[in-house]
Protein backbone atom coordinates (compact mmCIF):
# COMPACT_ATOMS: atom_id res chain seq x y z
CA UNK A 1 0.00 0.00 0.00
CA UNK A 2 1.30 3.42 -0.93
CA UNK A 3 1.36 6.40 1.41
CA UNK A 4 -2.00 8.17 1.70
CA UNK A 5 -2.20 11.63 3.19
CA UNK A 6 -5.16 13.15 1.32
CA UNK A 7 -7.64 10.32 0.86
CA UNK A 8 -6.65 8.32 3.97
CA UNK A 9 -9.94 9.23 5.67
CA UNK A 10 -12.14 9.23 2.56
CA UNK A 11 -13.89 6.01 3.55
CA UNK A 12 -14.57 6.89 7.18
CA UNK A 13 -18.32 6.81 7.73
CA UNK A 14 -19.71 10.35 7.94
CA UNK A 15 -16.41 12.08 7.09
CA UNK A 16 -18.38 14.70 5.15
CA UNK A 17 -19.69 16.07 8.44
CA UNK A 18 -17.73 18.45 10.62
CA UNK A 19 -18.07 16.30 13.74
CA UNK A 20 -16.57 13.16 12.23
CA UNK A 21 -13.94 15.11 10.31
CA UNK A 22 -12.89 16.94 13.47
CA UNK A 23 -12.85 13.73 15.52
CA UNK A 24 -10.52 12.23 12.91
CA UNK A 25 -8.04 15.05 13.47
CA UNK A 26 -9.49 17.63 11.12
CA UNK A 27 -8.72 21.36 11.42
CA UNK A 28 -5.57 20.70 13.47
CA UNK A 29 -3.53 22.38 10.74
CA UNK A 30 -5.56 25.59 11.20
CA UNK A 31 -4.79 25.66 14.92
CA UNK A 32 -1.12 25.03 14.22
CA UNK A 33 -0.90 27.51 11.34
CA UNK A 34 -2.49 30.36 13.28
CA UNK A 35 0.34 30.04 15.82
CA UNK A 36 3.03 29.80 13.13
CA UNK A 37 2.15 33.01 11.29
CA UNK A 38 1.84 33.65 7.52
CA UNK A 39 5.55 33.77 6.60
CA UNK A 40 6.31 30.49 8.35
CA UNK A 41 3.44 28.77 6.49
CA UNK A 42 4.71 29.99 3.11
CA UNK A 43 8.17 28.74 4.14
CA UNK A 44 6.82 25.26 4.93
CA UNK A 45 5.01 25.09 1.59
CA UNK A 46 8.23 26.10 -0.18
CA UNK A 47 10.16 23.40 1.70
CA UNK A 48 7.55 20.80 0.81
CA UNK A 49 8.30 21.16 -2.90
CA UNK A 50 4.54 21.02 -3.58
CA UNK A 51 3.83 21.57 -7.26
CA UNK A 52 0.55 22.90 -8.62
CA UNK A 53 -1.81 19.97 -9.12
CA UNK A 54 -3.99 21.56 -11.80
CA UNK A 55 -1.72 20.57 -14.64
CA UNK A 56 1.15 23.01 -15.01
CA UNK A 57 3.12 21.71 -12.01
CA UNK A 58 4.45 25.12 -10.98
CA UNK A 59 5.93 25.21 -7.43
CA UNK A 60 3.09 26.38 -5.17
CA UNK A 61 5.30 28.04 -2.54
CA UNK A 62 7.02 30.12 -5.19
CA UNK A 63 3.65 31.22 -6.61
CA UNK A 64 2.62 32.31 -3.13
CA UNK A 65 5.87 34.24 -2.78
CA UNK A 66 4.98 36.40 -5.79
CA UNK A 67 1.85 37.93 -4.27
CA UNK A 68 2.07 41.71 -4.01
CA UNK A 69 1.19 43.31 -0.68
CA UNK A 70 0.37 46.93 -1.40
CA UNK A 71 -0.87 48.88 1.62
CA UNK A 72 -4.63 49.08 1.99
CA UNK A 73 -5.57 46.83 -0.96
CA UNK A 74 -7.26 43.50 -0.14
CA UNK A 75 -5.73 40.29 -1.44
CA UNK A 76 -7.65 37.19 -2.53
CA UNK A 77 -7.12 33.49 -2.69
CA UNK A 78 -9.19 31.76 -5.37
CA UNK A 79 -9.55 28.01 -5.48
CA UNK A 80 -9.70 26.66 -9.01
CA UNK A 81 -12.38 23.97 -8.98
CA UNK A 82 -13.23 24.38 -12.65
CA UNK A 83 -12.02 20.84 -13.32
CA UNK A 84 -12.76 20.32 -17.03
CA UNK A 85 -9.77 18.60 -18.62
CA UNK A 86 -11.08 15.42 -20.25
CA UNK A 87 -9.98 12.45 -18.16
CA UNK A 88 -9.85 14.44 -14.93
CA UNK A 89 -12.31 14.00 -12.07
CA UNK A 90 -10.09 13.97 -8.98
CA UNK A 91 -11.10 17.40 -7.61
CA UNK A 92 -14.72 16.39 -7.85
CA UNK A 93 -13.97 13.30 -5.73
CA UNK A 94 -12.09 15.32 -3.15
CA UNK A 95 -14.80 17.97 -2.85
CA UNK A 96 -17.62 15.46 -2.87
CA UNK A 97 -16.24 13.15 -0.21
CA UNK A 98 -13.84 15.32 1.80
CA UNK A 99 -15.27 18.85 1.61
CA UNK A 100 -13.80 19.80 4.97
CA UNK A 101 -10.29 18.89 3.82
CA UNK A 102 -10.59 21.57 1.13
CA UNK A 103 -12.10 24.10 3.55
CA UNK A 104 -9.30 23.42 6.04
CA UNK A 105 -6.66 23.91 3.33
CA UNK A 106 -8.38 27.10 2.23
CA UNK A 107 -8.40 28.62 5.71
CA UNK A 108 -4.68 27.88 6.27
CA UNK A 109 -3.76 29.15 2.79
CA UNK A 110 -5.94 32.26 3.16
CA UNK A 111 -4.17 33.06 6.43
CA UNK A 112 -0.77 32.60 4.76
CA UNK A 113 -1.71 34.93 1.90
CA UNK A 114 -3.78 37.41 3.88
CA UNK A 115 -7.06 36.72 2.08
CA UNK A 116 -10.13 37.70 4.08
CA UNK A 117 -12.49 36.76 1.25
CA UNK A 118 -11.64 33.52 -0.53
CA UNK A 119 -13.53 32.10 -3.49
CA UNK A 120 -14.05 28.58 -4.75
CA UNK A 121 -14.68 28.84 -8.50
CA UNK A 122 -16.45 25.57 -9.29
CA UNK A 123 -17.55 24.37 -12.72
CA UNK A 124 -21.26 24.93 -13.19
CA UNK A 125 -22.06 21.28 -13.90
CA UNK A 126 -20.92 20.25 -10.40
CA UNK A 127 -24.14 21.78 -9.09
CA UNK A 128 -24.70 19.30 -6.27
CA UNK A 129 -21.15 19.81 -4.97
CA UNK A 130 -21.94 23.51 -4.49
CA UNK A 131 -24.49 22.42 -1.86
CA UNK A 132 -21.99 20.05 -0.21
CA UNK A 133 -19.35 22.79 0.01
CA UNK A 134 -21.74 25.47 1.24
CA UNK A 135 -23.00 23.12 3.92
CA UNK A 136 -19.41 22.35 5.00
CA UNK A 137 -18.59 26.06 5.12
CA UNK A 138 -21.59 26.69 7.38
CA UNK A 139 -20.53 23.84 9.67
CA UNK A 140 -16.99 25.23 9.83
CA UNK A 141 -18.41 28.67 10.57
CA UNK A 142 -20.48 27.27 13.44
CA UNK A 143 -17.21 26.04 14.96
CA UNK A 144 -15.36 29.28 14.28
CA UNK A 145 -13.02 27.89 11.62
CA UNK A 146 -14.58 30.23 9.04
CA UNK A 147 -15.82 33.77 9.63
CA UNK A 148 -14.70 36.43 12.08
CA UNK A 149 -11.76 36.13 14.49
CA UNK A 150 -11.02 32.48 13.70
CA UNK A 151 -10.13 30.60 16.92
CA UNK A 152 -9.49 33.92 18.65
CA UNK A 153 -6.59 34.75 16.34
CA UNK A 154 -8.01 38.02 15.07
CA UNK A 155 -7.95 36.61 11.51
CA UNK A 156 -11.21 36.90 9.54
CA UNK A 157 -11.89 34.66 6.56
CA UNK A 158 -15.05 34.23 4.52
CA UNK A 159 -15.23 31.47 1.92
CA UNK A 160 -17.68 31.82 -0.97
CA UNK A 161 -18.59 29.30 -3.64
CA UNK A 162 -18.88 30.82 -7.12
CA UNK A 163 -20.56 28.63 -9.70
CA UNK A 164 -19.36 28.79 -13.31
CA UNK A 165 -21.58 27.93 -16.26
CA UNK A 166 -19.79 25.56 -18.59
CA UNK A 167 -16.49 26.73 -20.08
CA UNK A 168 -13.24 24.72 -20.01
CA UNK A 169 -11.30 27.92 -20.61
CA UNK A 170 -12.22 29.18 -17.14
CA UNK A 171 -9.73 26.69 -15.72
CA UNK A 172 -7.07 29.06 -17.07
CA UNK A 173 -6.42 31.39 -14.17
CA UNK A 174 -6.92 34.75 -15.88
CA UNK A 175 -10.06 33.51 -17.67
CA UNK A 176 -11.27 32.27 -14.31
CA UNK A 177 -10.71 35.73 -12.86
CA UNK A 178 -12.64 37.36 -15.71
CA UNK A 179 -15.47 34.90 -15.13
CA UNK A 180 -15.41 35.60 -11.40
CA UNK A 181 -15.91 39.25 -12.30
CA UNK A 182 -19.06 38.30 -14.23
CA UNK A 183 -17.59 38.44 -17.72
CA UNK A 184 -16.88 36.08 -20.62
CA UNK A 185 -13.98 33.76 -19.88
CA UNK A 186 -11.46 35.44 -22.13
CA UNK A 187 -7.90 35.00 -20.80
CA UNK A 188 -5.97 38.18 -20.03
CA UNK A 189 -2.62 39.07 -21.48
CA UNK A 190 0.13 38.60 -18.88
CA UNK A 191 1.81 40.59 -17.39
CA UNK A 192 0.41 41.86 -15.14
CA UNK A 193 0.19 38.49 -13.43
CA UNK A 194 -2.69 37.78 -11.05
CA UNK A 195 -0.27 37.97 -8.12
CA UNK A 196 0.00 41.71 -8.88
CA UNK A 197 -3.41 42.44 -10.45
CA UNK A 198 -5.95 39.66 -10.30
CA UNK A 199 -9.61 39.73 -9.44
CA UNK A 200 -10.93 43.34 -9.27
CA UNK A 201 -7.29 44.29 -10.00
CA UNK A 202 -6.30 43.13 -6.53
CA UNK A 203 -3.37 40.77 -5.83
CA UNK A 204 -4.72 37.24 -6.31
CA UNK A 205 -3.44 33.69 -6.04
CA UNK A 206 -5.29 30.98 -7.95
CA UNK A 207 -4.56 27.39 -6.88
CA UNK A 208 -6.09 24.04 -7.77
CA UNK A 209 -8.31 22.15 -5.29
CA UNK A 210 -5.80 19.34 -4.75
CA UNK A 211 -2.93 21.81 -4.26
CA UNK A 212 -4.84 23.60 -1.50
CA UNK A 213 -5.90 20.35 0.16
CA UNK A 214 -2.24 19.25 0.20
CA UNK A 215 -1.42 22.26 2.38
CA UNK A 216 -3.16 20.45 5.26
CA UNK A 217 -0.73 17.48 5.52
CA UNK A 218 2.19 19.85 4.77
CA UNK A 219 1.38 21.93 7.84
CA UNK A 220 0.57 18.89 9.96
CA UNK A 221 3.75 16.96 9.17
CA UNK A 222 6.05 19.83 8.19
CA UNK A 223 7.35 20.67 4.72
CA UNK A 224 10.51 18.61 5.06
CA UNK A 225 8.66 15.43 6.00
CA UNK A 226 6.22 15.96 3.13
CA UNK A 227 9.14 16.34 0.72
CA UNK A 228 10.43 12.91 1.77
CA UNK A 229 7.37 11.29 0.18
CA UNK A 230 7.83 10.74 -3.52
CA UNK A 231 11.00 11.13 -5.52
CA UNK A 232 13.15 14.06 -6.70
CA UNK A 233 11.06 17.09 -7.58
CA UNK A 234 7.89 14.99 -7.48
CA UNK A 235 7.24 15.38 -3.78
CA UNK A 236 4.19 14.29 -1.83
CA UNK A 237 1.30 12.36 -3.26
CA UNK A 238 -0.71 12.90 -6.43
CA UNK A 239 -4.34 12.14 -7.11
CA UNK A 240 -4.80 10.25 -10.35
CA UNK A 241 -8.17 9.86 -12.00
CA UNK A 242 -8.02 6.71 -14.06
CA UNK A 243 -10.49 6.01 -16.86
CA UNK A 244 -10.93 4.53 -20.31
CA UNK A 245 -10.46 0.80 -20.81
CA UNK A 246 -9.45 -0.42 -17.34
CA UNK A 247 -11.06 -2.76 -14.86
CA UNK A 248 -11.16 -0.33 -11.95
CA UNK A 249 -11.69 3.26 -13.05
CA UNK A 250 -11.61 5.76 -10.22
CA UNK A 251 -9.52 8.19 -8.20
CA UNK A 252 -6.27 6.91 -6.69
CA UNK A 253 -3.73 8.58 -4.46
CA UNK A 254 -0.21 7.59 -5.46
CA UNK A 255 3.12 8.48 -3.90
CA UNK A 256 4.83 8.91 -7.29
CA UNK A 257 7.34 6.09 -6.76
CA UNK A 258 5.27 3.39 -8.48
CA UNK A 259 5.80 2.38 -12.09
CA UNK A 260 3.25 2.99 -14.83
CA UNK A 261 3.04 -0.77 -15.29
CA UNK A 262 2.11 -1.29 -11.65
CA UNK A 263 -0.46 1.51 -11.82
CA UNK A 264 -2.21 -0.05 -14.82
CA UNK A 265 -2.00 -3.73 -13.91
CA UNK A 266 -1.99 -3.92 -10.12
CA UNK A 267 -5.27 -4.66 -8.36
CA UNK A 268 -4.58 -1.83 -5.94
CA UNK A 269 -5.00 0.63 -8.82
CA UNK A 270 -6.48 0.20 -12.32
CA UNK A 271 -6.62 -3.61 -12.16
CA UNK A 272 -5.59 -4.21 -15.79
CA UNK A 273 -7.46 -4.08 -19.07
CA UNK A 274 -10.96 -5.63 -19.23
CA UNK A 275 -11.86 -8.73 -21.25
CA UNK A 276 -8.27 -9.87 -21.63
CA UNK A 277 -7.56 -7.13 -24.14
CA UNK A 278 -4.12 -5.67 -24.67
CA UNK A 279 -2.96 -2.17 -23.95
CA UNK A 280 -2.67 0.00 -27.03
CA UNK A 281 -2.03 3.53 -25.83
CA UNK A 282 -2.47 5.90 -22.94
CA UNK A 283 -2.88 9.59 -22.29
CA UNK A 284 -1.38 9.83 -18.81
CA UNK A 285 -2.21 13.37 -17.72
CA UNK A 286 -5.47 14.62 -19.23
CA UNK A 287 -6.48 15.18 -22.86
CA UNK A 288 -3.90 17.92 -23.48
CA UNK A 289 -0.81 15.82 -22.90
CA UNK A 290 0.78 13.66 -25.61
CA UNK A 291 -0.66 10.19 -26.17
CA UNK A 292 1.92 7.41 -25.89
CA UNK A 293 1.85 3.97 -27.50
CA UNK A 294 2.13 1.11 -25.00
CA UNK A 295 5.80 0.44 -25.65
CA UNK A 296 6.84 4.04 -24.90
CA UNK A 297 4.44 4.28 -21.99
CA UNK A 298 5.77 1.40 -19.94
CA UNK A 299 9.43 2.01 -20.78
CA UNK A 300 11.23 5.16 -21.83
CA UNK A 301 13.01 5.38 -25.17
CA UNK A 302 16.18 4.42 -23.29
CA UNK A 303 14.49 1.22 -22.16
CA UNK A 304 14.17 2.27 -18.53
CA UNK A 305 11.06 1.66 -16.47
CA UNK A 306 8.70 4.62 -16.59
CA UNK A 307 7.33 5.84 -13.26
CA UNK A 308 4.22 7.77 -12.27
CA UNK A 309 5.90 11.10 -11.54
CA UNK A 310 6.51 14.45 -13.21
CA UNK A 311 10.07 13.71 -14.38
CA UNK A 312 9.66 10.14 -15.55
CA UNK A 313 6.40 10.75 -17.45
CA UNK A 314 8.06 13.61 -19.33
CA UNK A 315 11.30 11.69 -19.94
CA UNK A 316 12.11 11.98 -23.63
CA UNK A 317 10.31 15.30 -24.05
CA UNK A 318 7.50 15.36 -26.57
CA UNK A 319 9.43 13.12 -28.96
CA UNK A 320 9.07 10.00 -26.80
CA UNK A 321 7.54 11.18 -23.52
CA UNK A 322 4.40 12.83 -22.19
CA UNK A 323 3.40 14.73 -19.03
CA UNK A 324 1.87 14.25 -15.59
CA UNK A 325 -0.53 17.12 -16.36
CA UNK A 326 -3.70 17.05 -14.28
CA UNK A 327 -3.46 13.33 -13.54
CA UNK A 328 -6.27 12.36 -15.91
CA UNK A 329 -5.08 8.89 -16.91
CA UNK A 330 -6.91 7.64 -20.03
CA UNK A 331 -6.24 4.08 -21.19
CA UNK A 332 -7.02 2.80 -24.70
CA UNK A 333 -7.24 -0.92 -25.38
CA UNK A 334 -6.42 -2.69 -28.63
CA UNK A 335 -9.91 -2.13 -30.08
CA UNK A 336 -9.77 1.65 -29.87
CA UNK A 337 -9.18 4.02 -32.74
CA UNK A 338 -6.57 6.71 -32.13
CA UNK A 339 -7.91 8.84 -35.00
CA UNK A 340 -11.40 8.86 -33.52
CA UNK A 341 -10.16 9.54 -30.01
CA UNK A 342 -8.07 12.44 -31.32
CA UNK A 343 -11.10 13.70 -33.24
CA UNK A 344 -13.20 13.89 -30.05
CA UNK A 345 -10.45 15.91 -28.39
CA UNK A 346 -10.16 18.24 -31.39
CA UNK A 347 -13.93 18.75 -31.28
CA UNK A 348 -13.66 19.44 -27.56
CA UNK A 349 -11.01 22.15 -28.03
CA UNK A 350 -12.92 23.75 -30.91
CA UNK A 351 -15.97 23.87 -28.65
CA UNK A 352 -13.97 25.33 -25.77
CA UNK A 353 -11.81 27.88 -27.62
CA UNK A 354 -12.83 31.32 -26.36
CA UNK A 355 -12.26 32.78 -29.82
CA UNK A 356 -9.90 35.62 -28.91
CA UNK A 357 -6.84 34.42 -30.85
CA UNK A 358 -7.16 33.52 -34.53
CA UNK A 359 -4.72 30.57 -34.51
CA UNK A 360 -6.79 28.82 -31.86
CA UNK A 361 -10.26 29.95 -32.96
CA UNK A 362 -9.72 28.95 -36.60
CA UNK A 363 -7.12 26.23 -36.13
CA UNK A 364 -9.16 24.13 -33.71
CA UNK A 365 -12.06 24.12 -36.18
CA UNK A 366 -9.83 23.11 -39.08
CA UNK A 367 -8.29 20.30 -37.07
CA UNK A 368 -11.72 19.02 -36.09
CA UNK A 369 -12.94 19.00 -39.69
CA UNK A 370 -9.80 17.27 -41.01
CA UNK A 371 -9.90 14.63 -38.30
CA UNK A 372 -13.57 13.93 -38.90
CA UNK A 373 -12.85 13.54 -42.61
CA UNK A 374 -9.98 11.16 -41.92
CA UNK A 375 -12.01 9.18 -39.39
CA UNK A 376 -14.81 8.78 -41.93
CA UNK A 377 -12.43 7.44 -44.55
CA UNK A 378 -12.81 10.53 -46.73
CA UNK A 379 -9.39 12.02 -46.06
CA UNK A 380 -6.34 12.43 -48.25
CA UNK A 381 -2.74 11.63 -47.37
CA UNK A 382 -1.96 15.34 -47.62
CA UNK A 383 -4.53 15.97 -44.86
CA UNK A 384 -2.16 14.37 -42.38
CA UNK A 385 0.60 16.83 -43.26
CA UNK A 386 -1.90 19.68 -43.25
CA UNK A 387 -3.04 18.65 -39.79
CA UNK A 388 0.56 18.62 -38.62
CA UNK A 389 1.12 22.04 -40.12
CA UNK A 390 -1.97 23.54 -38.46
CA UNK A 391 -1.12 22.30 -34.98
CA UNK A 392 2.40 23.72 -35.38
CA UNK A 393 0.92 27.12 -36.19
CA UNK A 394 -1.36 27.12 -33.16
CA UNK A 395 1.25 26.10 -30.60
CA UNK A 396 2.87 29.07 -28.90
CA UNK A 397 0.87 31.62 -30.89
CA UNK A 398 -1.98 32.27 -28.49
CA UNK A 399 -2.57 34.34 -25.36
CA UNK A 400 -3.25 31.32 -23.17
CA UNK A 401 -2.20 27.66 -23.18
CA UNK A 402 -5.50 26.37 -24.66
CA UNK A 403 -3.89 26.62 -28.07
CA UNK A 404 -1.00 24.40 -26.96
CA UNK A 405 -3.44 22.05 -25.26
CA UNK A 406 -5.33 21.66 -28.54
CA UNK A 407 -2.18 21.21 -30.61
CA UNK A 408 -0.31 18.66 -28.49
CA UNK A 409 -2.73 15.73 -28.67
CA UNK A 410 -2.96 16.06 -32.45
CA UNK A 411 0.81 16.30 -32.80
CA UNK A 412 1.45 13.26 -30.60
CA UNK A 413 -1.20 11.17 -32.37
CA UNK A 414 0.42 11.83 -35.75
CA UNK A 415 3.92 11.41 -34.34
CA UNK A 416 3.28 7.95 -32.89
CA UNK A 417 0.34 6.65 -34.92
CA UNK A 418 0.94 8.00 -38.41
CA UNK A 419 0.42 4.57 -39.95
CA UNK A 420 -3.07 4.43 -38.43
CA UNK A 421 -3.93 7.78 -40.02
CA UNK A 422 -2.55 6.57 -43.37
CA UNK A 423 -4.53 3.34 -43.10
CA UNK A 424 -7.72 5.40 -42.79
CA UNK A 425 -6.88 7.12 -46.07
CA UNK A 426 -5.70 4.03 -47.93
CA UNK A 427 -8.50 1.72 -46.77
CA UNK A 428 -11.53 4.00 -46.56
CA UNK A 429 -14.09 1.19 -46.70
CA UNK A 430 -12.46 -0.76 -43.93
CA UNK A 431 -11.86 2.35 -41.85
CA UNK A 432 -15.58 3.01 -41.44
CA UNK A 433 -16.26 -0.61 -40.51
CA UNK A 434 -13.51 -1.50 -38.09
CA UNK A 435 -10.62 -0.15 -36.10
CA UNK A 436 -6.96 -0.42 -36.97
CA UNK A 437 -6.06 -2.47 -33.92
CA UNK A 438 -2.73 -2.77 -32.23
CA UNK A 439 -0.24 -2.70 -35.12
CA UNK A 440 3.48 -2.70 -34.75
CA UNK A 441 3.90 0.36 -32.56
CA UNK A 442 2.39 -1.33 -29.56
CA UNK A 443 4.87 -4.24 -29.72
CA UNK A 444 6.43 -5.68 -27.73
CA UNK A 445 3.52 -5.32 -25.40
CA UNK A 446 3.48 -6.22 -21.79
CA UNK A 447 1.38 -9.23 -20.85
CA UNK A 448 1.26 -9.48 -17.08
CA UNK A 449 2.30 -12.79 -15.58
CA UNK A 450 -0.42 -14.80 -13.77
Amino acid at each position, binding site marked *: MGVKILLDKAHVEGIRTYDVYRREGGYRSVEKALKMGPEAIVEEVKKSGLRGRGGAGFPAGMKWGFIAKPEGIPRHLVCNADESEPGTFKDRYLMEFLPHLLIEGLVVSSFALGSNATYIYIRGEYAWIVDILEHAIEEARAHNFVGKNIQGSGFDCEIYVHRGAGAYICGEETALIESLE*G*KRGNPRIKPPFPAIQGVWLRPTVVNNVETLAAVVPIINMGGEEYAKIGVGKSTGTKLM*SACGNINKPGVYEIDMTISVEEFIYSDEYCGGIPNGKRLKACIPGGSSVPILPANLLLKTAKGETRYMNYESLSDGGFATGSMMGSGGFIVLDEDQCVVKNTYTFARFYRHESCGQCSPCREGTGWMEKLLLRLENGAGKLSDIDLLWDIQRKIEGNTICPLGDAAAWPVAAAIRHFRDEFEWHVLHPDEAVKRNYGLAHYADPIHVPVG
Partner: protein
Amino acid sequence: MTKFNDTQLTEFNRLVSHYPEGKQKSALLPVLHLAQDTFGGWLSPETMDYVAELLQIAPIEVYEVATFYSMYNLKPVGKYMFEVCQTGPCMLNGSDNIVAYITDKLGIKPGETTSDGMFTLKTVECLGACGYAPMMQLGKTYREHLTKEKVDSIIDECRRTAAKNN
Protein backbone atom coordinates in the same frame (compact mmCIF):
# COMPACT_ATOMS: atom_id res chain seq x y z
CA MET B 1 -44.32 38.16 -15.45
CA THR B 2 -40.54 38.03 -15.26
CA LYS B 3 -39.94 38.86 -11.60
CA PHE B 4 -38.29 36.94 -8.76
CA ASN B 5 -40.55 36.23 -5.80
CA ASP B 6 -39.43 36.99 -2.23
CA THR B 7 -37.57 33.69 -1.75
CA GLN B 8 -35.76 34.16 -5.04
CA LEU B 9 -34.94 37.76 -4.17
CA THR B 10 -33.45 36.61 -0.86
CA GLU B 11 -31.27 34.15 -2.79
CA PHE B 12 -30.36 36.92 -5.24
CA ASN B 13 -29.27 39.17 -2.37
CA ARG B 14 -27.26 36.34 -0.80
CA LEU B 15 -25.40 35.78 -4.09
CA VAL B 16 -24.65 39.50 -4.52
CA SER B 17 -23.42 39.75 -0.91
CA HIS B 18 -20.49 37.42 -1.79
CA TYR B 19 -18.71 40.18 -3.69
CA PRO B 20 -17.26 43.53 -2.65
CA GLU B 21 -19.38 46.68 -2.67
CA GLY B 22 -19.81 47.95 -6.22
CA LYS B 23 -18.70 44.64 -7.75
CA GLN B 24 -22.21 43.20 -7.97
CA LYS B 25 -21.62 42.29 -11.62
CA SER B 26 -19.52 39.43 -10.28
CA ALA B 27 -22.74 37.71 -9.25
CA LEU B 28 -23.88 37.55 -12.89
CA LEU B 29 -23.13 33.87 -13.53
CA PRO B 30 -24.80 32.55 -10.35
CA VAL B 31 -27.75 34.94 -10.84
CA LEU B 32 -28.24 33.73 -14.43
CA HIS B 33 -28.43 30.16 -13.09
CA LEU B 34 -31.09 31.30 -10.64
CA ALA B 35 -32.99 33.10 -13.41
CA GLN B 36 -32.82 30.13 -15.76
CA ASP B 37 -34.08 27.77 -13.05
CA THR B 38 -36.87 30.21 -12.18
CA PHE B 39 -38.11 31.21 -15.62
CA GLY B 40 -38.72 27.98 -17.50
CA GLY B 41 -35.24 26.55 -17.97
CA TRP B 42 -33.99 29.09 -20.49
CA LEU B 43 -32.95 32.73 -20.74
CA SER B 44 -35.30 34.82 -22.83
CA PRO B 45 -34.29 38.37 -23.79
CA GLU B 46 -36.87 39.53 -21.25
CA THR B 47 -35.22 37.45 -18.50
CA MET B 48 -31.77 38.75 -19.40
CA ASP B 49 -33.00 42.37 -19.35
CA TYR B 50 -34.51 41.77 -15.93
CA VAL B 51 -31.18 40.37 -14.63
CA ALA B 52 -29.37 43.41 -16.07
CA GLU B 53 -31.79 45.71 -14.29
CA LEU B 54 -31.38 43.88 -10.98
CA LEU B 55 -27.59 43.98 -11.17
CA GLN B 56 -27.58 47.55 -12.48
CA ILE B 57 -25.53 46.67 -15.55
CA ALA B 58 -26.17 47.16 -19.27
CA PRO B 59 -28.22 44.43 -21.00
CA ILE B 60 -25.34 43.78 -23.42
CA GLU B 61 -23.17 42.74 -20.46
CA VAL B 62 -25.69 40.00 -19.75
CA TYR B 63 -26.13 38.93 -23.38
CA GLU B 64 -22.40 38.56 -23.98
CA VAL B 65 -22.06 36.31 -20.94
CA ALA B 66 -25.21 34.29 -21.62
CA THR B 67 -24.00 33.51 -25.14
CA PHE B 68 -20.51 32.47 -23.99
CA TYR B 69 -21.25 29.74 -21.46
CA SER B 70 -22.66 26.41 -22.56
CA MET B 71 -25.02 25.92 -19.61
CA TYR B 72 -27.27 28.84 -20.46
CA ASN B 73 -30.07 27.91 -22.83
CA LEU B 74 -31.02 30.65 -25.24
CA LYS B 75 -33.98 28.72 -26.60
CA PRO B 76 -36.78 26.88 -24.77
CA VAL B 77 -35.84 23.32 -23.81
CA GLY B 78 -37.81 20.27 -22.74
CA LYS B 79 -38.83 19.63 -19.18
CA TYR B 80 -36.01 17.10 -18.93
CA MET B 81 -32.74 17.67 -20.71
CA PHE B 82 -30.47 14.69 -21.34
CA GLU B 83 -26.96 16.10 -21.72
CA VAL B 84 -24.88 13.17 -22.89
CA CYS B 85 -21.10 13.48 -22.74
CA GLN B 86 -19.31 12.41 -25.92
CA THR B 87 -15.67 13.37 -25.27
CA GLY B 88 -12.76 10.87 -25.38
CA PRO B 89 -13.19 8.76 -22.24
CA CYS B 90 -16.98 8.56 -22.64
CA MET B 91 -16.56 7.73 -26.34
CA LEU B 92 -14.13 4.93 -25.41
CA ASN B 93 -16.88 3.51 -23.22
CA GLY B 94 -19.63 3.62 -25.83
CA SER B 95 -21.31 7.03 -25.52
CA ASP B 96 -22.11 6.92 -29.26
CA ASN B 97 -24.41 3.96 -28.62
CA ILE B 98 -26.18 5.82 -25.81
CA VAL B 99 -26.82 8.87 -28.01
CA ALA B 100 -28.05 6.60 -30.83
CA TYR B 101 -30.32 4.71 -28.44
CA ILE B 102 -31.92 7.88 -27.05
CA THR B 103 -32.35 9.24 -30.58
CA ASP B 104 -34.05 6.02 -31.58
CA LYS B 105 -36.21 5.72 -28.50
CA LEU B 106 -37.42 9.34 -28.30
CA GLY B 107 -37.26 10.16 -31.99
CA ILE B 108 -35.11 13.25 -31.48
CA LYS B 109 -31.62 14.05 -32.69
CA PRO B 110 -29.10 15.97 -30.54
CA GLY B 111 -30.33 19.55 -30.19
CA GLU B 112 -33.99 18.59 -30.63
CA THR B 113 -36.95 18.44 -28.24
CA THR B 114 -39.80 15.93 -28.29
CA SER B 115 -43.07 17.34 -29.63
CA ASP B 116 -44.71 17.01 -26.20
CA GLY B 117 -42.00 19.29 -24.76
CA MET B 118 -40.91 16.60 -22.35
CA PHE B 119 -37.35 15.73 -23.43
CA THR B 120 -34.43 17.53 -25.01
CA LEU B 121 -31.35 15.64 -26.14
CA LYS B 122 -28.05 17.48 -26.13
CA THR B 123 -24.50 16.23 -26.65
CA VAL B 124 -21.98 17.92 -24.41
CA GLU B 125 -18.23 17.95 -23.88
CA CYS B 126 -16.46 16.42 -20.87
CA LEU B 127 -18.38 16.81 -17.61
CA GLY B 128 -15.74 15.31 -15.31
CA ALA B 129 -17.24 11.87 -14.85
CA CYS B 130 -14.75 10.02 -17.05
CA GLY B 131 -14.33 7.12 -14.63
CA TYR B 132 -18.06 6.49 -14.53
CA ALA B 133 -18.65 6.60 -18.29
CA PRO B 134 -20.85 6.72 -20.26
CA MET B 135 -22.83 9.41 -18.49
CA MET B 136 -25.28 12.25 -18.82
CA GLN B 137 -26.31 15.26 -16.82
CA LEU B 138 -29.98 15.43 -15.88
CA GLY B 139 -30.88 18.60 -14.03
CA LYS B 140 -28.64 19.07 -11.05
CA THR B 141 -27.18 15.57 -10.95
CA TYR B 142 -25.18 13.10 -13.02
CA ARG B 143 -26.45 9.72 -14.24
CA GLU B 144 -23.46 7.47 -14.72
CA HIS B 145 -22.50 3.99 -16.00
CA LEU B 146 -25.30 4.33 -18.56
CA THR B 147 -26.71 1.30 -20.33
CA LYS B 148 -29.75 1.00 -22.57
CA GLU B 149 -31.70 -0.42 -19.62
CA LYS B 150 -30.64 2.48 -17.44
CA VAL B 151 -31.73 4.98 -20.10
CA ASP B 152 -35.11 3.23 -20.26
CA SER B 153 -35.57 3.51 -16.52
CA ILE B 154 -34.50 7.18 -16.49
CA ILE B 155 -37.06 7.97 -19.19
CA ASP B 156 -39.76 6.13 -17.21
CA GLU B 157 -38.73 7.93 -14.05
CA CYS B 158 -39.03 11.33 -15.77
CA ARG B 159 -42.47 10.46 -17.16
CA ARG B 160 -43.66 9.27 -13.76
CA THR B 161 -42.38 12.40 -12.02
CA ALA B 162 -44.00 14.64 -14.64
CA ALA B 163 -47.33 12.78 -14.32
CA LYS B 164 -47.22 13.11 -10.54
CA ASN B 165 -46.57 16.85 -10.72
CA ASN B 166 -49.43 17.50 -13.13
